[in-house]
């Protein structure tokens, strides 16, 4: 997971930090990062997909299940 965060495209990481970690709303995140709210939505979705792809790629199926449990 640490590697996923390090490798994540920078714009996605910033949105994920604001929403997922800091608990900001989409509106607040949009205001803070000065981007449209639709961009917040799409970047967060892509950030989650990036994490998912990383988990799937870096672990065997059994390890992936262990990681998310």
């Amino acid at each position: 997971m640490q590697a996923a965060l390090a490798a994540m495209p920078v714009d996605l990481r910033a949105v994920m930090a604001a929403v997922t970690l800091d608990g900001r709303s989409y509106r607040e995140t949009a205001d803070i990062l000065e981007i449209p709210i639709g961009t917040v939505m799409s970047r967060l979705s892509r950030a989650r997909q990036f994490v998912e792809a990383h988990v799937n790629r870096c672990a065997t199926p059994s390890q992936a299940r262990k990681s998310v449990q």
Partner: protein
Amino acid sequence: MIVTDHQLSAWLSGSLTPDEAARIAAAVEADPVLSARAERLGQLDDLVRQAVPLQDGVPDALLARLGLAPAERPADVTDIADARQKRAATVAERRRPTQIWRIAAQVALVAGIGLAAMQFLPDRAPQQPQDAYRALSDERAPRIDADALVLFASGTTADQARAIVLAAGGSVVGSPTETGAIRVKAGADRDDMLARLRARPEVTMAESLDAGRP
């Protein structure tokens, strides 16, 4: 009803209007596939939060050393541990500027981006919330000379962790991250080392540092 990942993400983040949220909730309730997808996305969020614990991960002293906004002690609080508990207790406290910087520092440290990642925007004082999040976007920092990060289950001692890493064919590099993850240099075969580490019950996470990079 077709529900996209974008909509599910917004629903999970609590960013939909009540009407929209109700529609998505009903769709998730009625569709096992959609329900499984929502659960999967929620698990990924949990994984990210688990990887970046916010409370007490970055000491005030480290924030000060990084030149970030110092913690403001509430007037009615004299004990720093008590202050942290109060900070965790309210959403308002979570959103204080100092907490934003703590998150930025925490993500940088956990991700192995390095402390140099915090030395950014030299022409601008890092006091605004947007600067904190943009700190996460700095790619200029040098990579730490390690092949993997390993997170051990709570209760695992440093000596036990070193022994486990050694038995797996690696060696500990430097000191642990602020969140307790250990940087590891692989011996002959990194993948074999990671597989051996992941097989250990004491290991919560063992990840290659360069996995997923272009």
